[in-house]
């Protein structure tokens, strides 16, 4: 395992129980991402992309195999440390945004920084640049329910970016966006990538995948490099 590996997965399996049957979602996946890489995972619906992404994001357990993130063996790490890693190392943009409905846009965006122990004022200051970059400055007091799908997507992106993660994970970041705002987000990713960020992005759109450095295919739980 070389020091330049950000993600190093070996023989990862994940299955769900469906009644009496086992549904094997990930089948012996080997997946490696180097630091600074911009990787796209391409695959049809139901192929297990989100499942893989959740495991990469330290949010789900794997059944067997090993997974190291930045050299840390995630499959053997305690929940408390995983929470810290999720907060400090990973920026996760969910397929369905996952914003907290009771909090407004600003509160949603600064939440990871609050978790880190920053006070509200500092956190808001640290997020201002990203907020204006995503064009959310005039929507800060709104609740997620008062936003369009694209705006929600951008709030989710802002929340993932403001914690300045070493690994950015995006599950269909442009799925809900129109052509131009989708292109904007992708341009932003490209810029973040050029700044040295490691990005893993899920998509089922070939055109979106083109923005990435490298594309891997996930078909029926099997990864094809």
């Amino acid at each position, binding site marked *: 395992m070389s020091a330049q590996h950000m993600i190093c997965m070996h023989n990862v399996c994940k299955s769900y129980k469906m009644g009496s049957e086992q549904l094997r979602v990930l089948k012996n996946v080997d997946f490696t991402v180097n630091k600074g890489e911009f990787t796209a995972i391409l695959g049809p619906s139901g192929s297990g992309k989100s499942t893989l992404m*959740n495991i990469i*994001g330290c*949010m*789900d*357990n794997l059944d067997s195999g090993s997974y190291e993130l930045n050299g840390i063996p995630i499959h053997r790490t305690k*929940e*408390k440390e995983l*929470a*810290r*890693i*999720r*907060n*400090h190392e990973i920026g*996760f943009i*969910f397929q369905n945004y*996952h*914003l*907290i*409905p*009771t*909090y407004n846009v600003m*509160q949603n965006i600064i*939440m*990871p920084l*609050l*978790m*880190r*122990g*920053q*006070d*509200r004022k500092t956190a808001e200051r640290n997020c201002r640049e990203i907020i204006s970059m995503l064009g959310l400055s005039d929507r800060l007091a709104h609740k997620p329910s008062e936003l369009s799908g694209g705006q929600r997507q951008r709030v989710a992106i802002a*929340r993932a970016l403001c*914690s300045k993660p070493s690994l950015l994970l995006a599950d269909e970041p442009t799925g809900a966006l129109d052509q131009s705002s989708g292109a904007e987000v992708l341009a932003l990713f490209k810029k973040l990538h050029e700044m040295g960020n490691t990005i893993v992005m899920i998509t089922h759109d070939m055109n979106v995948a083109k923005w990435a450095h490298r594309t891997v295919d996930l078909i029926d739980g099997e990864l094809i490099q």
Partner: protein
Amino acid sequence: MRFTQILDLVRINLIQNKFKVLLTSIGIIVGAATIVCVIAIGRGGQADVAEQFRNLNAGAMDISCEQPQKGSSSRGANAAGASVRSASNTAKKTDPSASKQSGRSEKNVSGYPAELGGNTQTKSTRRITLSVDDMDDITSAVAGLSEATITYTTKQNIYGGNIEDTESYTVAGTLSDYARLSNLSMLFGDYLSDADNENKQKVCVLGYSAAKKIFGSADQAYDSLVYIADRPYTVGGVLAQQGTVESGISADEAIFIPYATGIKYLTGSNISPTITIIASDVDNISSIIDNVKAVLAQSYPDAEFTISDAGSKMEAANKSNRTLTLMLIAMACIVFIIGGIGIMNVLFVSVKERTEEIGILKAIGGSKKVILLEFIMEACCISLIGGLLGVLLSFAVTPVLTGFGLRMELSVTGALIALGFCIVTGTVFGFYPAWKASRLVPVEALSSE
């Protein structure tokens, strides 16, 4: 995550769910109000007891022999009774070993029937009249007594002052030291003296209310004449107002005369005197009671005496008061448990509703501790708000309850205890749902919808 930030989140959540918070806290509101009221009632009761026993010496004991109630006294019978009593006394003194029993039997056989006359009383009932001699027996034989006195009361018709016809008053025959023993203070004049007693003087001391009723005012009463059973008594003093008392003679309404005067002119031996003794040390009361019983048993075998000490009366009153308070507290606890279960239910539902939120918080790095804290703090705040509303409610309810004649004393301590209970309930019942929420795997929580 900073604690202040958690509180901030709690605040946002509570403000956005005002109605739910109010509904949740109803149980707590009622519980807190109950606790405050219970404590207020308990304190009110204690204050009541303290007031009733204000004039009472803690070391005081009343010795009496329950007498069958008799009709109005007849002079001849009384004289007979008195002579019997003195005969028995002389018998006791001259021949202590043998004639004690005979003295008693003499009283039974000859004295009693004569006294009863045509009365329907059962003949087997023994009549015992405590006397100054008995008091002297007790004071000389029982150690640890600081003072002793003997009193009796009788109902007499009074005439004088503003009284149109006659009125019935309680007349108490007392010795000179009665005023000191009963903590009575004088408004005018002096209390009855030893000389008054020895010479069987027709003097009296009026209770404050009695003086006011008979003469209009205390100073008009002083040095006037009162007719007790048609004989004139000079008012030698008027007592200051004493207030209500739990035991003994209600001094405000009574007329006090020398002990011997009353026996001579009013009652003869037809009295049921009470000997009051005062223990110099309150801790010795139970041994003193035993000793007094032994002394009395020598003079009056197989007679039953009632010895009530002020301390145990006070104790009993306080105890019944405590029992009531405990009962009310138990009730308050039940209310609290119900309130707590209410909180738990709502928090469970709220945790279910907010599983996605919990998943998100975990996904962006919220630790178990932070999530646990947020939910517990929410429960705590809900119950604290409920507690405050409950305390306010109790303030509103107090005048109503007081209107029903219940004495209540609100206190800061009571309010604080209620609030403390609220917080404990909220935390205890809020912990389980919060703990469950904090243990979810992020993905499971996220995909819960």
